């Protein structure tokens, strides 16, 4: 009796453990919700607004995926993760996709066994210092105390940069951006370093942003993008092509204003394929025909999301720069929808 019970319990446990590694798409559909890993709060990228609704550039991508998969941009559970916990959470299937200004690197892709599905922001690492510190270049930072988030590419780049320039520094490791902000503002560190976009976003929340300068040096390449676990290529395709759909929509002139009209049929076959009125791209992904339409309607195309969350008209004020469409002198260039 007892033994059968134990064996039974073991079988149940083994089966449920087995189920966890099945297709992510089925899990998400069964759950009716997308678990999306985001920042612990970086205004403009992902942070809860006054009503507790997560908003931002990275959060918008989560909503687009939820809309593509489930047809509902609000069917997202946002899971705030620190730079330190994000990879473990993704590997342990606590989140389905990680959209958290994460740099695509060789070792994360190959050794940590993740699958980056594209780049949604081409960035680089910069330094921010109070104006009254009187530094105008990162090369003058010999002996400075530098706040860095642990578990990032930032801390590795920093070590490389100071070593290459043969100057010394004192790192102050911190876990979240908020902590770094406190230490930096209190002068417990001289400079703060992270992705330039993150610096702009952080500075925008300061009482007096003009009292701080971002030094001219950009010391690394930081292609930031969403990622999923290795081993479920179908789910990776969905995540990749949702991002591509947002970027392609901007390129093709599909906006939240004209999407209903275009979805009724247009004379551009690529728009028709994208919005599902021609061909069966949605079916190939295992989604509805209007998956991309839903994704774009969630928050607009890439350009709209950018302008709304981090663009020049927002307090963060980032220019498109490298992140403009290839036609406009940037390097956003998505493969064709066909």
């Amino acid at each position, binding site marked *: 009796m007892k033994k059968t019970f134990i064996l039974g319990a073991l079988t149940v446990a*083994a089966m449920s453990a087995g189920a966890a590694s099945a297709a992510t798409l089925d899990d998400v559909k069964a759950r009716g919700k997308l678990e999306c890993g985001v920042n612990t709060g970086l205004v403009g990228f992902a942070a809860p607004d006054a009503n507790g609704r997560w908003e931002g550039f990275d959060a918008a991508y989560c909503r687009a995926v939820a809309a593509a998969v489930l047809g509902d941009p609000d069917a997202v559970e946002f899971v705030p993760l620190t730079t*330190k916990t994000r990879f473990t959470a993704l590997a342990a299937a606590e989140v389905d996709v990680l959209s958290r200004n994460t740099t695509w690197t060789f070792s994360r892709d190959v050794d940590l066994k993740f699958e980056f599905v594209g780049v949604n922001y081409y960035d680089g690492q910069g330094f921010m210092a109070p104006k009254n510190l009187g530094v105008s270049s990162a090369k003058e930072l010999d002996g400075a*105390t530098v706040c860095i988030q642990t578990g990032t590419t930032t801390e590795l780049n920093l070590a490389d940069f100071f070593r290459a320039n043969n100057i010394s520094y004192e790192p102050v*490791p911190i876990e979240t951006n908020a902590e770094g902000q406190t230490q930096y503002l209190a002068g417990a560190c001289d400079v703060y370093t992270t992705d330039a976009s993150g610096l702009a976003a952080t500075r925008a929340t300061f009482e007096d942003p003009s009292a701080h300068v971002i030094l001219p040096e950009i010391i690394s390449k930081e292609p930031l993008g969403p990622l999923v676990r290795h*081993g479920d290529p179908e789910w990776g395709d969905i995540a990749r092509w949702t991002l591509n759909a947002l970027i392609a929509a901007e390129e093709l002139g599909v906006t939240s204003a004209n999407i209903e009209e275009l979805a009724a049929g247009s004379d551009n076959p690529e728009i028709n394929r994208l919005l599902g009125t021609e061909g069966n791209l949605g079916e190939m992904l295992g989604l509805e025909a209007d998956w991309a339409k839903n994704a774009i309607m969630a928050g607009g195309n890439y350009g709209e999301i950018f302008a709304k969350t981090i663009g020049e008209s927002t307090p963060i004020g980032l220019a498109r720069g490298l992140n403009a469409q290839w036609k406009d002198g940037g390097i956003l260039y998505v493969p064709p929808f066909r």
Partner: protein
Amino acid sequence: MTTLTDPPKESFRLSMLIYDSRYRSMTIQIVALIAVLTLIGWLISNTAQNLADLGKQPSFSFLGESAGYDINQRLIDYENQDSHLRAAFVGLLNTLLVAFMGCIAATLVGVFVGVLRLSNNWVVARLMTIYVEMFRNVPVLLWIILVMAILIETLPAPRAFRGETPEASMMLGDSVAFTNRGFYVPEPLFSRGIGDVHLFGEAALRFDVSLDLIAVVATFIAGLLISGLITRRADRIQAATGDRPRTWHWKAAVIVIPTVAVLAILGFYLGKPELQGFNFAGGTHMRNSLIALWLALSLYTAAFIAEIVRAGILAISKGQTEAAAALGLRQRRIMSLVVLPQALRVIIPPLISQYLNLTKNSSLAIAVGYMDITGTLMGITLNQTGRELETILIGMLIYLTISLTISFVMNLYNDAVKLRER
């Protein structure tokens, strides 16, 4: 006259495993053992299977790879090209440092507060009660963060020390600076030092030991031993003649003179910190993270130790004190000869677990960015290499080893002081 006969010999039946009380407990234990072993086996195979599915075979080779990150506080030389193993070792030493400092401070404060809580002075006793209740009823993590926040927000930044009319100035003859990055204090230096010995060559666990320090400490300890001999001699003379010779000046001399002499020979001087560029240079930098962690851990643990000490003293019946007083012993001698030796017996076992708690709680270090073994090996290394299982396993082993060592040493001490019954 006996009417009792042996019960009829029963043959063994399988059902007796459950219904016969002679076998039942054995049966249950074996079944339970099998169940536990199955569960463990399943956990291991499940983990291995899942890791294999992810394509991550457990491997420890990452320990030999270059770490790539810098660590601010290091007791041994380290730079970002060193291996992850070396980084873990730096972290381990930082853990041991804060645990060691914490245990000492917690014991001092704890004994002090515990004794004062028994004071006849109402105000003092109440104050100590407030201290104990305040500290042991709030999670230690909050204390750590609070102390850190106070340090960062209230103390001046190094740049406040600069300029013609600085907002802040150094203290104690310009030798100590309290900043929100930590305290800069003078460091002991030797102008005619005899150097270091390098242990373990180029290995990841290599470290340097300062011969100067060894020389000074050895001289000091030798002084202590000799002064012990002097005490012993005084005891003998007192036992034989009834007169106790005056010894304190001899004792002071054998401790102080040789130590000072060695310091002088080595050219001892204090290196003062000085403002240079962005920070103070020279001197020893006690980082704010270390201070916050150390203070919070010791004050928190001290609250528990105070209670243990109080309980230990209260466990000795008042009759003992009275009896000792009736024999004419003075108050201090009653404490040291009668009460404490017996109280220690009650105090030490729970004290051991407080030391273990403090050591384990030190793993909260990352909350203030103190780079202990949790911050290096189980923090940055884990994150940069993605080796969750391996790093956590090593980390657990390390904490286990530290804890077992502390218990072992403290148990030896306990054996030494426990009441020997005859």
